[in-house]
């Protein structure tokens, strides 16, 4: 992880690094990531945004990962959402899904409500929490070149793995262009998984 006074990465640029490495993973999206991921997604038919229950993307992703150990699952979580469901880190660590990559988009703010700070802004260390919870691997990056360089080894390394991406808060974005409704994505991906 870099330690200089670099500019905080743009969130879409951070997700673009992931998008370039994506193959056939099921991608579970949370609050701000469901707004920034759709234009970058190479497999939108395998994306689902958990809009039904705040903070539960990580738990939903765990369920998919446990159901299908042969399928890779990426949870693109956010700091505000994960703070609502911190216990899920322990639940996931206990379940040890070897196919789950948990990415946390840490902008220190509730962007979907206008960018107000979270209770954890400036103090919470998700990497340390994940490590303490029992994740076999955890990483944090505030430099996208470092992240891009490390990504192949993260993807091939021990799971579950947590990756914290420090990104800029952009405040509220309008709309979620290109993202299917959860109620449409769920049966579609369920059918896809039944056939693959």
């Amino acid at each position: 992880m870099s330690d200089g006074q670099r500019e905080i990465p743009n969130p879409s640029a951070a997700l673009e690094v992931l998008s370039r490495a994506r193959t056939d993973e099921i991608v579970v999206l949370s609050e701000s990531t469901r707004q920034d991921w759709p234009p970058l997604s190479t497999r939108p038919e395998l994306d689902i945004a958990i809009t039904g229950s705040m903070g539960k993307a990580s738990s939903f992703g765990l369920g998919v990962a446990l159901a299908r150990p042969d399928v890779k699952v990426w949870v693109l979580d956010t700091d505000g959402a994960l703070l609502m469901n911190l216990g899920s880190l322990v639940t996931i660590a206990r379940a040890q899904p070897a196919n789950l990559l948990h990415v946390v988009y840490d902008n220190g703010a509730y962007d979907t409500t206008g960018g107000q700070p979270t209770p954890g802004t400036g103090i919470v260390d998700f990497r340390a929490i994940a490590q303490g919870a029992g994740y076999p691997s955890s990483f944090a990056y505030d430099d996208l070149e470092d992240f891009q360089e490390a990504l192949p080894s993260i993807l091939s390394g021990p799971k579950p793995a947590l990756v914290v991406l420090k990104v800029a808060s952009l405040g509220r974005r309008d709309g979620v262009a290109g993202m299917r409704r959860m109620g449409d994505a769920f049966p579609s991906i369920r059918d896809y998984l039944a056939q693959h």
Partner: protein
Amino acid sequence: MAVSSGALQAATVLAELQRCGITHVVWLPDSETGYMYEAIRDSAFLTLVPVCREGESIAIAAGLFMGGKRPVVLIQSTGFFESGDSVRGLALDLKLPLLLMIGYRGYRGEGQPLVDSAARFLEPILDAWGIPHYVVESDRTCSRISEAHQQAVSTTHPVAILMGQEYTG
């Protein structure tokens, strides 16, 4: 299935879950159902998924459904209250055929007074959300589990079993 007249036994509950083809029990233990832990853990057909807080359980079950499995959620009424957003936004909105097995804290038998607010509010809240519910408090009534599961599957809607008796066996 063997039917006894005694208290609800873990083996009887598991036989019902096996009949339903249940694959996973997503669970946080409570006083009403804690006695089933070892039976679930040691079961050859069930995978136990313990959670830290009950709201997780509904989301994990939703993910399991999307992956083609048949989970049940086994939590106490107090945890069901905590899970409200997940029940609404996932179990109901996604029309999950989810069997919710809920420890009925404060229930002391049919016709007996409900001893705390957890008991008084449970059935009215389930009614408000349109979730059908049935009490199971002995081996005699245990077949309601598979009947409720069949109802959940046929209606693609959550159905609740209220586990109504402390283990006495």
